[in-house]
């Protein structure tokens, strides 16, 4: 199936054969992808600008709306909502459109310029990149990579096998449960990192910053080591099986455990 949806077409609802791969490229507007056990379907509206191109073959869905260079000032906007099986591979690019995803547990990646990335209960191989968009997730599981320049990153509840979070000036607020042998790294330049772990967390925490304040659980002053110029703090919770590494240049790094408050 191939077709174009124009401004005059209004909102189109298209039933699709079961999807296994979805690629969407938008400029502005709204994008929602949701995993559902029911039949796959696409709801689409070209709100402004060039027609939106749709192609669907053998379970591969492609959706694209271009922004013509000579009409850069004109707004290009589309509303796209895809329902597909939870195991679908989903890949999205957008300039300013927020990418909202729920219930996808296969492979998921999104790249935006200023669009927010908002994900609820996703898992598997998960990757989010944005320049200034905020990345906000709830109930994420699996392996997660997040990268922003100035966008804040927040994970409200997650059970992760691994995490690689990076930002330049964006702040990281993370409430996660760690796994045995899991690997969790956060790197920022000036962004703060505030991480909360369960009270029975089993992890080795290493925090290091050039000039940012450090606060990790139960790190006695004697355990602070370091060469001149770089502050380090190390703390072992439980048997210390998971590895948590936080680094910054000037951002403050803090780790808390649930319930018990922790002294610097």
């Amino acid at each position: 199936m191939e077709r174009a949806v124009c401004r005059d077409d209004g909102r189109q609802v298209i039933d699709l054969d079961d999807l296994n791969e979805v690629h969407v490229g938008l400029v502005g507007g709204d994008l929602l992808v949701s995993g559902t056990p029911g039949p796959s379907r696409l709801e689409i509206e070209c709100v402004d600008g060039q027609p939106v191109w749709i192609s669907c073959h053998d379970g591969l869905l492609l959706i694209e709306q271009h922004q013509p260079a000579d009409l850069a000032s004109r707004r290009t906007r589309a509303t796209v909502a895809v329902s597909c099986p939870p195991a679908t591979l989903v890949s999205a690019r957008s300039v300013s459109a927020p990418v909202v995803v729920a219930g996808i547990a296969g492979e998921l990646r999104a790249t935006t310029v200023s669009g927010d990335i908002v994900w609820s209960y996703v898992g598997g191989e998960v990757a989010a990149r944005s320049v200034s968009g905020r990345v906000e997730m709830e109930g994420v599981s699996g392996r997660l990579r997040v990268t922003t320049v100035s966008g804040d990153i927040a994970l409200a509840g997650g059970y992760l096998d691994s995490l690689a979070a990076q930002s330049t000036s964006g702040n990281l607020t993370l409430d996660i449960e760690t796994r045995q042998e899991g690997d969790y790294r956060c790197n920022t330049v000036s962004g703060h990192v505030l991480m909360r772990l369960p009270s029975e967390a089993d992890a080795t925490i290493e925090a290091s910053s050039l000039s940012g304040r450090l606060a990790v659980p139960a790190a006695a002053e004697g355990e602070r080591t370091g060469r001149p110029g770089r502050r380090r703090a190390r703390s072992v919770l439980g048997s210390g099986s998971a590895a948590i590494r936080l680094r910054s240049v000037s951002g403050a790094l803090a780790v808390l455990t649930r319930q018990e408050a922790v002294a610097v």
Partner: protein
Amino acid sequence: MKRVFGHGGLRLFLLMLLDEQPRHGYELIRLVEDRFLGMYTPSAGTIYPRLSSLEEEGLVEHEEVDGRKIYRLTDAGRQELHDRKAELAELQERAAESARQMAGAIRAEVRDSVRELREELRHTMRDVRRQDRRAGRRSEAEGRGSRHARPGSRLGLQALRADLDAFCGDILAAAEATELRADTVKAVRDALLDAREAVVAVFNAPPAY
């Protein structure tokens, strides 16, 4: 997310699910979730009271199987469902086609969670810092010094401690060299209390310049 169901919507939806076959409570929660693209998860606290009120109305009945309640539709329930067919169709239509509102609702929900988390962590960090400050004051009082003390204070404290040690030493030495009568001890203690008051007054006084 409440607006997913208008008034009575969830009730009707539950009747529909039970019309398909008898089910237990958890299964109903999961099915409602599935039907709404995994975006609306009713809690047990939403579903169970709804089921008992349906039971009171005589639309639903239950039996216990292996300690779990299996709910089924009664004839009155089937009649109710039949009477409200149009409403149900509308509801299902809405469930399937409100994807855009769903996106908004998901955003709002995630945003709420994130905001709550930020608030919570901010409060916790504030408490931690407050405890730090308190611990700092305590250790200062215990004379171990503190990195929260102002830089000049540490040297001052050391000097004072030396003076106080010497003061105590002098007084004890004088006391040991004297035969201590009860009135002498009382007089010394009064003098010490006076001295203490004078010293504390110095701490409380505003700086002279």
